[in-house]
């Protein structure tokens, strides 16, 4: 079976051709055109600009995906499109394109939830993962923990009560004057300052003296909060600017950035482990733009191996009672962490098997589409 995936929910126009054969996913092409540089000067995605750029490139990108896959329209068995959640004006471009193509070429059409796509981005084989699965989706717009007891059965069990983790990165990067997008610029800034270019940065002893809060880390539920953390950075940085100068100030900025990143990682790792323990999960799946963060990847892996977050001495006693056995962590390849259409095509496969086809005349984009069992 050959699936064409289309994704335009935010500022990436993406198309991909995925072949499913003998229970394996083969990525024949994965084309992504990012507008991030255009939006960088505004400090975030501007919807009007994004939609216009999507319209400009969506058909050439689809053509390129087909050409690279050496695939004609005849060979495509199904068209899958991301129908939400996302920015309305952006989503519409992909959805309307997919509807038209499905109608013209008489192909079955499948709508895929963007977050569902992120969950499947690391999967290589059909039903590769053991159930139950804990899915942690962290991006600029979302920070959610899902429980998947059965394929296509999603239950939201936790998440942020205010800002998404990626949003906190963006805002803190702005507060510290580091630029946009926040996640990559903060990561690079710390790595550069510490002389460990792109390698897993070890937090120094001084930085382990926790200065920033770890909001809600002790709460018994799986809720998170990143808004207060952002405010804490704001005040800490204001203080530094009043008291320090030159190299000292620069040093303080590095430490603050590193501690902020560590705080986010601590909260995400702790809550994920809690979810694993609570639901006896066999697999943990990480997805979304923030899953590109090297510290999050490394520390989550370490934590799942050993059963507690290494940097969290304070909470070690609380968590050390957790014996986490035979839990597999799935992290997508770095190039698959951002928005892409391969993940849309992969998730679509399960819906095709269940015959969730939708008529091109019935499909509309849903800006606030919550991921739940359908």
């Amino acid at each position, binding site marked *: 079976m050959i699936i064409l995936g289309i994704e335009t929910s935010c500022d990436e126009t993406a198309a991909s051709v995925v072949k499913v054969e003998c229970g394996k996913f083969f990525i024949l092409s994965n084309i992504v055109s990012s507008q991030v540089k255009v939006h960088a000067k*505004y*400090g*975030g*995605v*501007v*919807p*009007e600009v994004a*939609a216009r750029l999507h319209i400009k490139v969506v058909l050439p990108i689809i053509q390129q995906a087909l050409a690279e896959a050496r695939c004609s329209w005849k060979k495509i068995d199904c068209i899958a499109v991301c129908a939400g*959640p*996302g*920015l*309305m*004006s952006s989503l519409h471009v992909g959805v309307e394109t997919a509807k038209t193509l499905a109608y013209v070429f008489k192909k079955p059409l499948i709508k895929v939830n963007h977050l569902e796509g992120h969950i499947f981005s690391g999967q290589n084989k059909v039903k590769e993962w053991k159930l139950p699965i804990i899915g942690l989706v962290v991006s*600029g*717009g979302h920070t959610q923990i899902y429980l998947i007891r059965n394929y296509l059965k999603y239950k939201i069990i936790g998440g*942020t*009560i*205010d*800002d*998404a983790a*990626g*949003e906190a990165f*963006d*805002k803190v990067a*702005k*507060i510290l004057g580091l630029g946009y997008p926040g996640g990559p610029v903060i990561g690079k800034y710390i790595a550069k300052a510490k002389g460990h270019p792109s390698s897993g940065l070890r937090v120094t002893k001084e930085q382990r003296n926790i200065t920033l809060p770890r909001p809600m880390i002790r709460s018994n539920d799986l809720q998170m909060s990143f*808004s*207060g953390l*952002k*405010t*804490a950075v*704001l*005040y800490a940085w204001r203080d530094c600017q009043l008291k320090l100068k030159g190299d000292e100030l620069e040093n303080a900025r590095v430490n603050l950035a590193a501690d902020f990143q560590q705080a986010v990682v601590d909260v995400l790792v702790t809550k994920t482990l809690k979810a694993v323990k609570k639901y006896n999960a066999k697999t943990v799946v990480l997805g979304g733009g923030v899953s590109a963060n090297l510290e999050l990847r490394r520390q989550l892996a370490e934590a799942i191996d050993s059963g507690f977050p290494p940097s969290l001495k304070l909470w070690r006693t609380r968590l050390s009672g957790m014996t986490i056995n035979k839990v597999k962590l799935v992290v997508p390849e770095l190039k698959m962490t951002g928005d892409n259409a391969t993940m849309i095509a992969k998730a679509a496969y399960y819906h095709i098997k269940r015959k969730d086809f939708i008529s091109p005349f019935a499909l509309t984009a849903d*800006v*606030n589409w919550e991921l739940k069992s359908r």
Partner: protein
Amino acid sequence: MKVITNSPKETISFGKKIAKSLKGGEVVLLMGDLGAGKTTFVKGVAAGLGVKNTITSPTFVLMKVYKISASAKSYGGQSENIKIKKNIKVLVHIDAYRGLDLNDLENIGALEYFGEHDTICLVEWGGALLDYCRKKGIRCKKILINNINQKTREFIY
């Protein structure tokens, strides 16, 4: 008027108080720096109006629309009953943090909610909309939030 709050909790209570004074059709423009507590304040207003959903930041998606169901009578497990104003059915939470102008707001469909008699719009970073609202005759409330220190906030309205 000036109100001082000393914690996020107090900010939420203040939001609930403001919610009581809303009749439907108002646009509330919130001004204040990053971390001032704009979203926290909106959480309070939403609770006061009977929104059951968790209010999360709209920065990324720019606008979130919450429906207020008529059955919502209590919130947060507290016994305190809030009289839901039957005429307010929708709460719209908009974030113009990235410098969205009128054009952008029209594009995302936000302006369609302005002035609707059953809708309350709360716009973070919305100071620039004051003139527009006045011209269109839309009732609007301007609330300025000042960070006094890490915990204390001053609301001017």
